[in-house]
């Protein structure tokens, strides 16, 4: 209590800081917490507005909901395990083993991350559907049915294993291969060195990657919507169906709350238990990039696996490109530009809208992320832990829940935003800022505050210090935050589907509509346009951030 009072007194002495802290608090309360509260309230009310628990009682009586919950959890667990294992194999091979084309394989593995939703689902239909290229044309299977559990699992592994790869790559890079070599040198077999040294050291990272994939899988909306089918209900699409198909907002909100619980638990475990147990054994630069613990046989076995996954990714994208430029997949392979023409005529407005929304929300998200990271690491004020939790909370909240929350919260006074650009931008900024915040916090924690103190001692005020010293140090985190925010803004669907309007529509929603009407060619064309735009944008952001950090950086480390 006394500490809090002292912190408030310190805060009061610095009006700018007080203002910033208050602003961030209000923003997070309004755009993260308030919509979630609205969902919780809606799930407990009848259409007339009376309080009731009847929607939750349906969980006990309706097999549909029980099955949806069970299916979502089991799919998420399976995708988590397989996706993480696959991600680990690829990360281990590309960081530890001396094999050709590492850079190219790295980029190919990342491709699914920058793709719009449905790419995996549509490719799977093209390749493994009833009339799929592999199942029907190559293997001649008559009654192959991809709809249901295995279609969803396959498509989600393809979509989310790259996330596990990305995070495990970082983990493995922070474990020095010298340790493995040391174990090998003192007489351990290669196998022992891996299981007694590498594996235990990366275990927290593996667990963390599993939880990330688990959260992504359980909140995923696009893949199940196309591939699950009504006979294999899952929570996220079911919540959407309750609202849009059965017109039952309260039941949808109830399922959204149910969906939130496993996500939040996984998030809390990841955040407060696993992340405390990360090991970093690299001090300074990595000493050697390849380890001797991999035998030649194992090396090529691992490499074959990595090549197989990369080949699969390439096959999926080849199919999308082909699908976008042929008249009707599986029937008439005449080359055509008609799908692309459709995108640039009927769909052109959604291309512009998507770009505008992404361009507006990306810098806002980047700056907010750095600001919050700075406040959390460098400043002391009451409620700091709550602020940090609130600011990254939306990472764990499935998009469906966010979308329902925003439409409930911002279609009534005092703040009416439905149908505007603002509602989409706000949803994206607050939904995708956590990654920027986490990166910023990680970077700042490694920078000695004495550098900033030195600037202040030399007469710089807080703003100048932040701008001239802190911000340049944050450039890499800022950059990754920007890229993440942009990619997600271009490829988001689950929250956006509730928020698009006549004025502001998104390409991903167009893709959903086209997939829904069975016009996969147009969907593929939209997907390609999205991927090209995202790639161009990443290149532009890279150039801009590099130029900016060159002109402003005064101190460079490492």
């Amino acid at each position, binding site marked *: 209590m006394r500490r809090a009072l002292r912190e408030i007194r310190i805060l009061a002495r610095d009006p700018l800081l007080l203002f910033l802290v208050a602003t961030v608090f209000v923003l997070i309360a309004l755009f993260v917490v308030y919509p979630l509260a609205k969902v919780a309230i809606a799930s407990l009310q009848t259409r007339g507005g009376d309080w009731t628990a009847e929607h939750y009682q349906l969980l006990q009586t309706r097999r549909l909901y029980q099955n949806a919950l069970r299916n979502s959890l089991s799919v998420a667990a399976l995708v988590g395990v397989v996706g993480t294992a696959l991600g680990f194999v690829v990360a281990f091979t590309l960081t530890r083993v001396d094999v050709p084309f590492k850079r190219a394989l790295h980029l190919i593995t990342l491709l699914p991350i920058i793709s719009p939703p449905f790419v995996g689902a549509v490719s799977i*239909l093209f390749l493994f559907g009833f009339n799929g290229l592999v199942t029907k044309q190559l293997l001649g299977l008559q009654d192959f049915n991809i709809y249901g559990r295995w279609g969803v699992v396959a498509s989600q592994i393809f979509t989310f294993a790259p996330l596990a790869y990305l995070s495990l790559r970082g983990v493995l890079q922070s474990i020095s291969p010298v340790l493995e070599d040391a174990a090998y040198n003192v007489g351990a077999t290669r196998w022992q060195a891996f299981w007694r040294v590498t594996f235990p050291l990366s275990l927290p990272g593996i667990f963390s990657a599993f939880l990330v994939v688990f959260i992504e899988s359980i909140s995923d909306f696009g893949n199940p919507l196309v591939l699950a089918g009504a*006979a294999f209900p899952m929570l996220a699409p079911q919540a959407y169906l309750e609202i849009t198909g059965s017109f039952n907002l309260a039941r949808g909100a109830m399922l959204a709350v149910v969906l939130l619980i496993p996500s939040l638990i996984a998030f809390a475990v990841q955040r407060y238990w696993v992340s405390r147990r990360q090991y970093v054994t690299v001090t300074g630069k990595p000493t050697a990039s390849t380890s001797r613990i991999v035998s030649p046989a194992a090396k090529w076995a691992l490499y074959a696996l990595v090549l197989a996954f990369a080949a699969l990714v390439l096959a999926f994208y080849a199919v999308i490109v082909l699908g976008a430029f042929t008249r009707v997949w599986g029937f008439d392979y005449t080359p055509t530009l008609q799908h692309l023409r459709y995108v640039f005529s009927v769909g052109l407005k959604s291309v512009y809208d998507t770009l505008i929304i992404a361009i507006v929300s990306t810098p806002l998200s980047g700056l907010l992320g750095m600001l919050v990271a700075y406040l959390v690491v460098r400043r002391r004020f009451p409620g700091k832990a709550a602020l940090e939790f609130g600011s990254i909370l939306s990472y764990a909240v499935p998009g469906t829940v966010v979308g329902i929350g925003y439409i409930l919260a911002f279609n009534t006074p005092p703040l009416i935003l*439905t149908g505007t650009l603002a509602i989409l931008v706000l949803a994206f900024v607050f939904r995708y800022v956590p990654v920027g915040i986490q990166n910023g916090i990680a970077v700042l924690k490694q920078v000695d505050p004495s550098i900033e103190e030195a600037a202040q001692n030399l007469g710089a005020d807080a703003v100048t210090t932040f701008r001239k010293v802190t911000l340049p140090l944050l450039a890499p985190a800022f950059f990754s935050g920007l890229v993440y925010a942009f990619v997600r803004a271009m490829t988001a669907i689950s929250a956006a589907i509730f928020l698009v309007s006549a004025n502001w529509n998104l390409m991903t929603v167009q893709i959903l509509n086209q997939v829904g*009407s*069975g016009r996969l060619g147009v969907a593929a064309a939209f997907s390609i346009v999205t991927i090209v735009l995202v790639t161009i944008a990443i290149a532009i952001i890279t150039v801009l951030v590099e130029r900016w950090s060159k002109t402003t950086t005064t101190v460079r480390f490492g």
Partner: protein
Amino acid sequence: MFVRRLAVLATALLLSLAAAQTLVVYSSVDEENSNRILAAFTADTGIQVQMTFLSTGPALARIEAESARPQADVWFGAPSENHIDAKGRGLTQPYVAAEAGALIGEFKDAEGYWHAIYTNPLALGVRTDVLAQRGLEVPRSWADLTNPGYRGLIQMPSPQASGTARAVVFTLIELWGEDAAFAYMADLNANVQTYTQSGTAPSGALGLGETVIALQFSPGFLKLVDEGFPVEVVFPAEGVGYEVASMSILAGAQNLDAAKALVDWMTSARGQEQLSAVKTYFLPIRADVSAGEGIPSLDEINLVSYDPAFASANRERLVDRWVEEVLGQ
């Protein structure tokens, strides 16, 4: 003199403002056809239209969620029972179209809350090439569809998500009564490959060869036939329900005059002729307008009407029953 001129000027100004109005439409007619029909409307009247495609469910959910501050003027498309539902929830407002007299009772609301745009019967689209390969007959009736030979070959939309699928449920109930209809659908379930979210997905899958027998409203199939796909359109012999795609002016519409103009134009002979002129494959609702060449006229098909009021009142219950008894979930 001056006052009169001022009045004329003011009227001209108002008229030009009205002409410059942009009508905001939530359309549940598929995007391509919405664009075609509404472009014909703009060409005829000069009224600009801003259209968002939302299938029936999302549209109604959106309109209800926005009812405190409506964002659109007209809900265009979606079967009439949804417009009855919207009327019951106070989401729409009445306006009797200038030529409402030319429409039969099933194609309009007596008080003018909604009017029909077009009508489509349910149909089966069948890939004749694949069935021939497998040595299977083309199904001719609802009863034929439960033939074990068709296991995993049928796609239809899910009643949970699609108004089209609910029309199937209502048709079967009208034909055989509720219990027999559900027993039939449970049998049919064994042959269904997947239930799609959208009411037009099955014809898309049929074109791709993803499925062999598709069930939905006829336009998607007529289009495939017109484009040269090996597809036959079958209207099951026992009888088929039909959708009456309708439109309502939303309560609180900001461009009321333009909204009324759309309702007047769409129900006029001129508007109805545009349905075939722009190749929508939709059937017109006026007896004095031809459906166009190659499109079956309504008297060639065994049509089954069901009471939209019953449909509207029982929808939620029947969808729940479908989930329980047919999906077995």
